[in-house]
C-alpha cells in the first residue's frame, strides 16, 4: 500500500518571473540586513562603555565660555593639549556634590598650572547663566566650556556629575573618578604622572 501513483505537477514558472522573484528576494534580504546593521550600530552607540584607564582619551572640541578660554583661545581641541597632563572635570551648577570639590579643583589648578597640567571644566546639561554664576561663586579661573549637544559627555559615557578623567601627556587616560575626587587622590595621581614624565 505504499506504492505511489504517478504525480502530475504544474510546469515550472516562467524563467523571467523566477528571475524577478529572485531579485526582489535579494532586495528584501539586503533591506533587512541594512536595517539590522543600522539598529546594531545604534545599539552599540547607546551601550558603549565608558573609556577606562589605559585607553586613549577621546578627543573633542571645546567652545569656551567668555573669559574661561585656554591660553587666550576661545576654541580648542583636546588634541591641542597633547604633551600636557589634563584634568577633565564634568560638573553642573545644579550638582550638589560638584560643590564639594569646586574650591579644591581651583586651588589644585593654581598649584599645578605652571607644571604642564591643564584643568578643563565641562558644564554638563547646565544653563549658561547658572554655569557662569557657579564659576564666579567659586572664583574658578581654569578653562571651562559647555557640553554643546552633550557631545563630550557622550564620548566619555559619563553617567552623572561630577566625573573626572585624568589624562597623561601621551593622551591616555590615567585615572577615572566617578563622584567627587579628594585632594589627596588628585594630587597623588598628578604627582605620579609628573614624576614618571608621562
Amino acid at each position: 500500500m505504499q506504492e505511489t501513483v504517478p504525480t502530475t505537477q504544474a510546469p515550472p514558472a516562467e524563467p523571467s518571473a523566477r528571475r524577478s522573484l529572485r531579485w526582489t528576494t535579494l532586495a528584501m534580504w539586503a533591506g533587512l540586513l541594512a536595517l539590522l546593521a543600522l539598529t546594531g550600530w545604534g545599539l552599540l552607540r547607546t551601550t558603549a562603555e565608558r573609556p577606562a584607564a589605559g585607553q586613549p582619551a577621546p578627543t573633542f572640541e571645546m567652545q569656551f565660555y567668555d573669559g574661561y578660554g585656554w591660553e587666550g583661545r576661545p576654541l580648542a581641541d583636546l588634541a591641542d593639549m597633547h604633551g600636557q597632563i589634563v584634568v577633565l572635570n564634568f560638573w553642573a551648577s545644579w550638582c550638589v556634590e560638584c560643590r564639594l570639590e569646586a574650591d579644591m579643583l581651583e586651588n589644585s589648578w593654581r598649584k599645578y598650572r605652571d607644571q604642564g597640567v591643564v584643568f578643563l571644566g565641562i558644564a554638563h546639561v547646565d544653563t549658561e547663566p547658572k554655569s557662569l554664576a557657579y564659576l564666579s561663586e567659586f572664583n574658578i579661573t581654569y578653562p571651562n566650556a559647555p557640553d554643546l549637544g552633550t557631545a563630550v559627555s557622550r564620548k566619555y559615557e559619563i553617567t552623572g556629575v561630577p566625573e573626572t578623567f585624568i589624562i597623561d601627556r601621551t593622551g591616555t587616560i590615567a585615572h577615572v573618578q566617578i563622584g567627587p575626587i579628594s585632594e589627596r587622590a588628585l594630587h597623588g595621581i598628578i604627582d605620579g604622572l609628573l614624576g614618571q614624565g608621562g
Partner: protein
Amino acid sequence: MKTYRLRFVIVAILGLALGLTAVPALAQDGVVSDDAVNAVAKDIYCPVCENTPLDVCPTQACADWRDLIRTQLSEGKSPQEVREYFAQIYGDGVLANPPRRGLSLIVLWILPVVLLLVGVLLFSRYLSDLRAQTASAPRAVTVMTASAPTAVAKSDPAARDDYVARVEQELQKG
C-alpha cells in the same frame, strides 16, 4: 453718528482681539506665566532623569531649564525658537519630537517607507507569479497516492477506475 459708533466698536473689538493674541505668553506686568513656560517645557525632556518631560520634572536641573525657557520667552523668543535653542545646545535628544534630520530621519522616516514599498513590491510579485502558475497548470490530480483515496475519488473517472481495480486485486490476494 451711528456709523461712527459702529466703527469705534469694531476697532475696539479688533484691538482687544489683537492684544489678546499677539503676546499670549506675557502677563500684564510682562512676566511670563507658568502656563506659557510649561507649554514649551512639555516638549522638552529632562536632561538627567530619563523619559520625564520638563514640565513635571522635580529636579534642580529641570527647574534651571524652565527658568531659561522663561527668560527666553520674556526676551521675545517664540516657543519654536526656544525649542531650537535647546536642541542646539543640548542635542536633539532633549526634544519630544526630534527634527527630521540625520539618523532619526533615516530610521524613523525613510527606512519604514522603503521597507513598506519593498514589502508591497514583493507581495505583488508573489501574487502575479502565483496567478501565472495557476493559469499554466493542467486541471489534473496534483498528488495521487495510495493513502489518498478521497483525492482519487474526487479526481477523473479513469484514475478512479484504476484505483478501484487495484483495491479489488489486493482484496482477492488477501
